[in-house]
């Protein structure tokens, strides 16, 4: 099996902090310390720079694509404490909104499931999480959770809008209540789940998950497709990736350490169907993990070490 590997020439002048593919897998958005956000077309192994967006005044940490039903919208967050929303209209990318409400670097952003409308959660080094939602007429409402994580929030990820538990005690024919929930990870080594309480019109801490022994670097809520349970992956400076599982019947979250890696784990990301987890860390390895039927997590990408090692050796020789 010959595999095609594409190196994208981004011409970023500094470190790249995030690279996100859009909904259709045809566009790649990157962001860098050089304060720019770039969008590439990556169809059929070729790449074409579509846009070079400069608005930030500091390193840009993350980018996030909104669901295409809202149009082509990209959000970016930066060290300059701003979150900028970009929109493509008539082939041109323009900023449509600048969200300034944090007192420190905004580290992470994540769009809510599209059922909830255009809604963006932003986690910042000031410890707060702000939730930006479109009222539809171009205006944006902001809600803020102050002191969500002491010292700072590093990652946010939304849970599915249709909560797994709601399927069980839902009367037939009634539309399931949309649930607004997201998970955050912070410098206080905690993973927290936040839930919106409609009656009180505010966000409350629903769960505090303790297991990591160092900063939590990334959290990822697995996409749900009609399953009774929720799964969250969190990865940390303590070199571990932890899988949190809630079976949907009560509010207990059990955890299992996926693996202890050789270096800081920076990223965890789920596949579209939610059954494969990709993990990458400071050891420059991307590994893929999958849960077996008996609940064990196995690395499915390490089988063919020999092949890769060979490739690596040859590429080293060419240096």
């Amino acid at each position, binding site marked *: 099996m010959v595999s095609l*590997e594409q190196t994208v020439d981004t011409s970023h002048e500094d470190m*790249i902090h995030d690279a996100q593919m859009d909904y259709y*897998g045809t566009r790649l958005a990157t962001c860098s310390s050089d304060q720019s956000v770039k969008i590439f077309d990556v169809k059929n192994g070729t790449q074409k720079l579509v846009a070079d967006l400069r608005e930030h005044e500091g390193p840009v940490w993350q980018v996030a694509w909104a669901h295409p039903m809202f149009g082509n919208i990209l959000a970016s967050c930066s060290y300059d404490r701003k979150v900028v929303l970009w929109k493509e209209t008539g082939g041109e990318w323009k900023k449509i909104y600048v969200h300034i409400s944090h007192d420190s670097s905004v580290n992470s952003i994540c769009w809510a499931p599209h059922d909830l409308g255009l809604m963006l959660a932003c986690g910042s080094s000031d410890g707060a999480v702000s939730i930006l939602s479109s009222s539809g007429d171009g205006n944006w409402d902001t809600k803020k959770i102050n002191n969500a994580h002491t010292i700072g929030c590093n990652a946010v990820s939304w849970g599915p809008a249709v909560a797994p538990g709601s399927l069980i005690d839902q009367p037939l024919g009634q539309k399931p209540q949309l649930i607004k929930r997201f998970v955050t990870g912070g410098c206080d080594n905690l993973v927290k789940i936040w839930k919106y309480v409609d009656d009180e019109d505010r966000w409350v801490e629903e769960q505090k998950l303790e297991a990591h022994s160092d900063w939590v670097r990334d959290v990822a809520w697995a996409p749900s497709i009609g399953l009774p349970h929720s799964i969250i992956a969190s990865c940390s400076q303590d070199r571990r990736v932890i899988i949190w599982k809630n079976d949907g019947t009560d509010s207990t979250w059990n955890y299992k350490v996926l693996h202890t890696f050789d270096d800081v784990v920076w990223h965890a990301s*789920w596949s579209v169907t939610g059954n494969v987890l990709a993990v990458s860390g400071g050891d420059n*390895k991307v590994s893929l993990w999958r849960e077996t039927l008996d609940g064990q997590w196995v690395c499915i990408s390490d089988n063919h070490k020999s092949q*890769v090692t060979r490739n690596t050796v040859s590429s080293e020789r060419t240096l």
Partner: protein
Amino acid sequence: MVFQDHKRSVNKVCFHTIEPHILLSGSQDGTMKCFDLRKKEASSTFYSLSESVRDVKFSPHHYFLFAAVQENGNVQIWDMRRTDRYEKQFTAHTGPVFTCDWHPEERRWLATGGRDKTIKIWDLSMKPMVEHCIQTIASVARIKWRPQQKFHIASCSLVIDFTINVWDIRRPFVPLAAFNEHKDVSTGFAWHHEPHIILSTSKDSTLYLHVFKDAIRPADHANPIGLDISCYGDISYAASNKIVRNGRSSFKGESYSSTKLPVFFRKHPSASDQFRSAVSSIFVFKNDGDKFLSMTWFIESARRYILSGRSFAELCEHNASVASDLQRPHVAQTWRILKLLYNAVPNLGAEHSWGVPSVGSISEMLKGIERDEAFDNSQEGSKSSRHNSGNTFKNRHQSGSKQSSRHVSGGTGNGVATTDRPDTSGATDNSTDSEESDNDKTITNIASGLGNTQGDFFFGDGETDQLMGFQCTLSQAPTIDSAQDWNLPGEAFQPRHPIKDCSPPPELDNAPSSPTSFDEDYIETKSMVGINGEVYDYTKLLMTPEVPSSPAWVFNDVIVDMLHYFAAQGDVQMCVSVLLVLGERFKGFVDETTQEQWFHSYIEILSCFQLWNVANKVISLSTISSISSLNQQSTTIHTLCGNCRRQMTRIGWFCDRCKIMPTQCSVCHQAVRGLYAWCQGCAHGGHLQHIQEWLQYHPWCPTGCGHLCEYT
């Protein structure tokens, strides 16, 4: 000693770098004055010709030179000996320049900072030129070069940002170090004659003495890695070169090849170099059929599955063959079992009850296959002794799928072949040593009769040699005539072709069982053994001419379990497809909310792959109202009034402005009921037939509006 020469407030003063008694001041009144501390009055005055002077700085390299920065964005270089005119002037910033600093060693360099949030390093050797530009997040209030570090400069902000940042001008995006102890904006800072200690003051009424090693290093906290999986299972991966250098191999995976290392890192750089040279490489790993991430099966199945429009059996058979084409034997198996189950119900009456044990094990079996696959997968690589290559693995699969097809063919065609597996397994269980001689005979029998064809047909190449080891047994039926023996191969061929006639052939209806060969190994791995006893019992029942009426087995629950199993596997496609194909047969067993969620997820994933047609089909086939109404949303057709050509906003068929109903036929002038053909260009139209006729002979609009309507 007090000098009161300036008319307005003095922004900055600066002592001469060599002469301790010379002091320079820059004032809001737009002038600079030079004082000799030995005299009572200003010795000279320089007129900047601007509103105000924000900062003045003597050059450490040139006795007479000093720089002055202005409110209007200009920088002036003066010679103390000439009071009438500056030596050089250039515009450095948009908006006020607040601060400037000469480089202590590099004669050419002057740094300036302003309200435009930038710090600029100017080369003054020739025509002033920006050498470096640092973008900060707030107005720059003060800057100061770090002693003994050529490329380092510290800054503090006028507003917003309370930190004192130290920058490496070669990496202008991320501060090298930051001190953020202050709770309000910093008003000033100074290096303590050496590069490791910095003093700072702030509006929060504190003074800090910072040690450089305690500084926060923002770059170290910056995420050096970006990772994402696209819907196609492609992985985009960005990694800083620091990481790439440390890590060697980049990605491990069956179908992903590894990264090429950037060529520009051969020597090990020093710490400061490491900070400076931060570049990332970004890779897109194309997924070429990685087993778990690839979505090719999904796209192909979505395109090729047929969900309606044919008989149930045909749908199942078609979908099963699609699945086996895509190397998904357990899905194919599932389709065939569904066909067997639901197709059999009306026809076979009591006969479906024999299926209880074998079908009850369907989900078990499926899991068995899965487990087997997973096992094989994990074992491949390491345990090459068992499976030498993926090839064997494949063969096993093929044989698996063929066996399953055999199994199903029996089920749909007649009772005989279907019973063969449980039957023989029962027999195997019961076979004793004494029977073995009989079995041996059977082998020879089969070998001469149908062994050859069967062997080729049922088993992949890899397993033909195993055929010798098969324990082929006769069923419990004591007598089997040769005619029945010969019937079997004919049926065994059938699964290759779709079986049109699903009713059991009458002459075989009561045939109790038949001899067959089977892979014992297969049975073992599929954990069939556990139910053998039951099966065996039942085989006996089948043999009795009068089948006692056993309670009809409700297998719907098993199907519900199966659907949930597929959902758990992330294969929501299967859930939806099965639901759609089963349709009325399987109504009300899965609650609507779950169904709705499956449909939503499936449609969502379909639209990821831009399979709009499939999504639309799924939507229109759905019986859930909230789903089937999905494709009626967000399609708006605006109607224009043919008379005034305004959009009819309130009601689509009545113009508020003209108070008429513009639904008249332009040809016959009657109101149109039913199909109304309508030109989007001129908004005129009429009866479809009339318009068609009209436009056959005339290119223009029948109303005479002059529009050249087009009928397509």
